[in-house]
């Protein structure tokens, strides 16, 4: 029982960590696009990014399940190349990334749009490329937005239930994460175990958020 508890918790945080890392890598360019682009189809992208905020998780999970199934074009293409996404950890990562996208993108986007244009221009007139300006000047100065995005995306992934249930099911060491385990234990009237999962999630997320807010208060010099 104890080993199962630990492996479930480990899988939960592994999923959250990988999801957050992937989101950070795609979230920064996406947020920069949304903050600075003047393209006409921008509002469409903006809408798609925000959809998970209002859409029931089961809707996203349902369509992902259809897309991943070997009967679909994408699913059969993936199966041919030996990739199985439905009821697998990799599938969960993709689902979580899509589902937590707005939680990473929105804080970064709002922090970026508060950086005065003259900061970019000053770096350009000092001979710095767009990429160097972004990495050395802009990202450090919006670190509050980055930290918010990381924490929210991480916490949201830890707390995710609907999407995972739809596309992942309840396979130990593969797709059985803590939120699913709680539901499962309650179903089998095993309240003590459910409580152990629930309290652990409660304490860990409280500790992470408290740490972030304390650190945030102590740092100076960024653009808030």
């Amino acid at each position: 029982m104890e080993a199962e508890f630990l492996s479930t918790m480990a899988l939960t945080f592994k999923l959250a960590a990988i999801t957050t890392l992937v989101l950070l890598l795609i979230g920064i360019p996406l947020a920069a696009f949304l903050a600075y682009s003047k393209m006409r189809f921008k509002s469409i992208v903006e809408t798609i990014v925000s959809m998970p905020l209002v859409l029931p998780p089961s809707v996203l999970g349902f369509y992902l399940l259809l897309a991943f199934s070997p009967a679909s074009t994408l699913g059969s293409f993936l199966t041919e190349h030996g990739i199985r996404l439905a009821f697998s950890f990799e599938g969960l990562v993709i689902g979580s990334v899509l589902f937590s996208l707005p939680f990473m993108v929105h804080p970064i986007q709002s922090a970026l749009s508060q950086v005065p244009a003259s900061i970019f221009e000053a770096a350009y007139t000092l001979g710095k490329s767009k990429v160097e300006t972004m990495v050395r000047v802009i990202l450090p100065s919006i670190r509050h937005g980055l930290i918010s995005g990381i924490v929210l995306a991480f916490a949201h992934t830890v707390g995710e239930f609907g999407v995972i249930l739809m596309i992942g099911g309840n396979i130990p060491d593969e797709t059985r994460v803590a939120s699913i385990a709680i539901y499962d234990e309650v179903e089998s009237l095993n309240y003590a175990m459910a409580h152990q999962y629930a309290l652990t999630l409660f304490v860990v997320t409280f500790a992470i958020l408290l740490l972030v807010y304390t650190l945030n208060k102590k740092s100076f010099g960024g653009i808030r």
Partner: protein
Amino acid sequence: MISVNINKHLDTAEGPLDAHFSLDIHEGEFLTLFGASGAGKTTLLRLIAGLEIPDSGRIEVEGEMWFDGARRINLPPQKRSVGFVFQDYALFPTMSVRQNLLFAAENAEQKNGVDELIELVELSQLSNRLPATLSGGQKQRVALARALVRRPKILLLDEPLSALDPAMRQKLQDELSLIHGRLGVTTLLVSHDIAETVKLSDRLAHVEAGVIKRLCSPMEFFSPQSLSGKLQLIGEVLKIEEDFPAVIVTLLVGSSVVRTVLSSAEASELRVGGHAIISTKAFNPILIPLP
């Protein structure tokens, strides 16, 4: 020699404007772009820096073509040797004073010059401070020093002193003048402050509605009908009060307020906020030194 001859369509607060800037700037010169806001002064600086692209024309700097509409040449800002001081200073918030300057340096020689620049703008004591902890005047000095790190061919100053109080403004004007004298960098300043313009510039370009209307020395511009032995002061009209049959006009000359009585006819062309020349005839001015 920097020669600018460019066209640019602008959408200003007062409606669309077809700007045409034609200007030759001599090496080492301090030239001020003077004019009302919305005339296109800042745009001209941004066009020279490459932050905005002209519709057509040419910008040539010491034999190097920065922009040529006909030959489709347009160097990005990164490739143009400019130092730009922004109105809001644009300091990098997570870097200390020293790091802001070091960030600008391209090579070891420029890195070594950083300390000297920090000393030149009197910021040695504050070199490890973050911009957020500095006063407006101090931030301005950092911005100026940072713009000079790369030894630019032209220094572009966009109303750098407009956000400062009068005392700090005067101090920085003196420093700017000193630094320009020391480094001899060709400088283009945007200003609508007469005192600043007269004090700092070799020449003045009067910009009006996107066109350079006049190019002359500041004294020639501000006291056109100069006669020898005549005292002339330039003041800003603060208040015009009807006091029949006369009109009392209050002006700001330097930092002192002067009141004078005019006839209604004489006062008819004055307006509050405008500038006027005060001159006296026939008398020798008396100068009494102040303690």
